């Protein structure tokens, strides 16, 4: 609770600070707010408090809160000289991001469908706006509108699903619903099943799983890069946390029912994400497709429900988040220098910026899942999880897709190291350096010694 309060208060303070033109103070205030909430995360550890029967701050919620807050913190650090260039309204941007974060905290900790709904919508509404904050930019406009229209559309399905489940169980409370399932296992209302499926669809849309992924590449490409970073890391993580809370706990008794469609979704997602990413010329768009494919891997945790599912998602999400932040951070810097975000802009980058190139390389290796990076541990856990049920063909399919993944992640490495090109020297501001260093350290540390995070939840 105090986490959400801290974040919203910070948002409001920032909003007012904006009104009073205290531009310099915005970032520090935000960072302090986020750090305080991180402290709250740490102090609430193991307390497992429930608020009004609506929110449950268990370790699951706290862990995901922690990772999302940390991710947001990094992203805020990246705002250095990013927004300032074209807008007066940094305070509003900050506020919106913080509001979205508040929604995310709700999403990872809800105990009631209404909270899920509110959380998702707070986050989504903020993102619709954030995607469009480059008002004069067609791509940004288009991203915003597409996201909005499709998001609103998918909300309809999510709501219909919630309604049907409510109709079947007479409650929005997750525990009640779960008890209903356990208690009436033989005579579950026929409304419940389509309700589950519709919620599956709604949440699949939010996490960008195929065939509900269509918004992802366009929106990620069109939105300002920093917002894309936020969407593809923090938001995605939150989406999975929400997904997991609902399906791994509440709907777990119906696992046999929703598993086949889930596997179908997983397979399509992996295939489309990876295969389409292969041919991209635009780094940002490639990352968008890669985020789709990662959604596929993340959904593995739902294929086999085990005590570790949540933790596996946490590890994977952490690995994915920090690697992506690195990728986007470098992308921002490269784009500022070269003006576009194609792979070609990375040509010969390693010559002048060996360390930045190295960091990006590690990020790519992590995304691709090479050992000694966090990404490998994440993938490994997912495979391990699914192999536990001996879904060998699913894993084999995933492996084939992972291979395709190697190909496109290495494209940027190839461009940086092996191609001759514009020998720009990037300007790496201090905050960027900090973010890069921290992210790389986390990526490598989790890759070499993942024990710290393996039994967190």
């Amino acid at each position, binding site marked *: 609770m105090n986490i959400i309060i801290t974040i919203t208060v910070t948002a409001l303070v920032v909003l007012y600070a904006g009104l009073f033109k205290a531009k310099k103070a915005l970032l520090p205030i935000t960072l302090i707010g986020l750090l305080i909430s991180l402290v709250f995360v740490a102090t609430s550890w193991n307390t497992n408090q429930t608020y009004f029967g609506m929110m449950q701050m268990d370790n699951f919620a706290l862990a995901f809160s922690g990772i999302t807050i940390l991710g947001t913190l990094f992203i805020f650090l990246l705002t250095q000289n990013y927004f300032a260039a074209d807008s007066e309204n940094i305070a509003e941007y900050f506020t919106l991001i913080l509001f979205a974060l508040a929604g995310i905290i709700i999403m990872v900790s809800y105990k009631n469908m209404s909270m899920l709904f509110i959380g998702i919508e707070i986050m989504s509404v903020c993102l619709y706006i954030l995607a469009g904050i480059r008002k004069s930019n067609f791509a940004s406009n288009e991203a915003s*509108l597409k996201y909005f229209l499709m998001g609103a*559309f998918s909300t309809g399905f999510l709501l219909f699903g919630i309604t049907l489940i409510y109709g079947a169980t007479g409650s929005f409370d997750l525990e009640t619903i779960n008890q209903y399932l356990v208690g009436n296992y033989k005579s579950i209302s026929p409304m419940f099943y389509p309700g589950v499926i519709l919620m599956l669809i709604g949440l699949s849309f939010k996490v960008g799983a195929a065939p509900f992924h269509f918004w992802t590449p366009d929106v990620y490409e069109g939105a300002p890069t920093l917002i894309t970073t936020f969407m593809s890391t923090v938001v995605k993580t939150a989406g999975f946390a929400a997904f997991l809370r609902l399906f791994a706990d509440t709907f777990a008794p119906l696992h046999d029912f929703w598993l086949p469609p889930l596997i179908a979704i997983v397979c399509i997602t992996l295939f489309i994400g990876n295969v389409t990413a292969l041919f991209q010329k635009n780094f940002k768009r490639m990352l968008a497709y890669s985020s789709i494919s990662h959604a596929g891997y993340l959904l593995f945790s739902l294929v086999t429900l085990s005590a570790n599912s949540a933790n596996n998602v946490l590890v994977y999400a952490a690995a994915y988040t920090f690697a992506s932040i690195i990728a986007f951070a470098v992308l921002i810097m490269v784009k500022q220098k070269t003006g576009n975000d194609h792979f070609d802009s990375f040509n010969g980058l390693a010559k002048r910026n060996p360390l930045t190139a190295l960091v990006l390389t590690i990020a790519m290796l992590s995304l691709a899942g090479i050992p000694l990076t966090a990404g490998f541990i994440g993938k490994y856990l997912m495979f391990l999880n699914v192999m536990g049920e001996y879904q060998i063909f699913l894993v084999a399919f995933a492996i084939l897709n992972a291979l395709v993944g190697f190909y496109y992640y290495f494209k940027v490495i190839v461009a940086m190291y092996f191609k001759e090109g514009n020998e720009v020297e990037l300007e790496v501001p201090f905050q960027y350096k900090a973010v890069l260093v921290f992210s790389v350290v986390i990526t490598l540390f989790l890759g070499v010694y993942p024990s710290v995070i393996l039994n967190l939840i």
Partner: protein
Amino acid sequence: MTQQLQGVPLNHYIWLSAIIFTIGVIGVLTRRNAIVIFMSVELMLNSVNLLLTAFSVHNNDPSGQVFVFFIMALAAAEVAVGLSIIVMVYRNTQSVDINVLNRLKW
């Protein structure tokens, strides 16, 4: 008077909501005007509202209606945001035709 009006089978409410929901979907599918599409989405939300209310009455549980209230709040928020996005887009493209928005692809 309401007492007398009861007795409609629940599944007829479901039918009705489903049909209106689908009409909303069809609207989204067939129209190109962003505003009309948005209106279709509103139609979908309303059908959900109706169904929720019906369930709420059927289950004799007020929380359903509270939820409808939240959906309305969302609808209001969405309309505000959505329409401002549409206005913003219109300023740039002089159109609200969604087919104009296809720079981002492939």
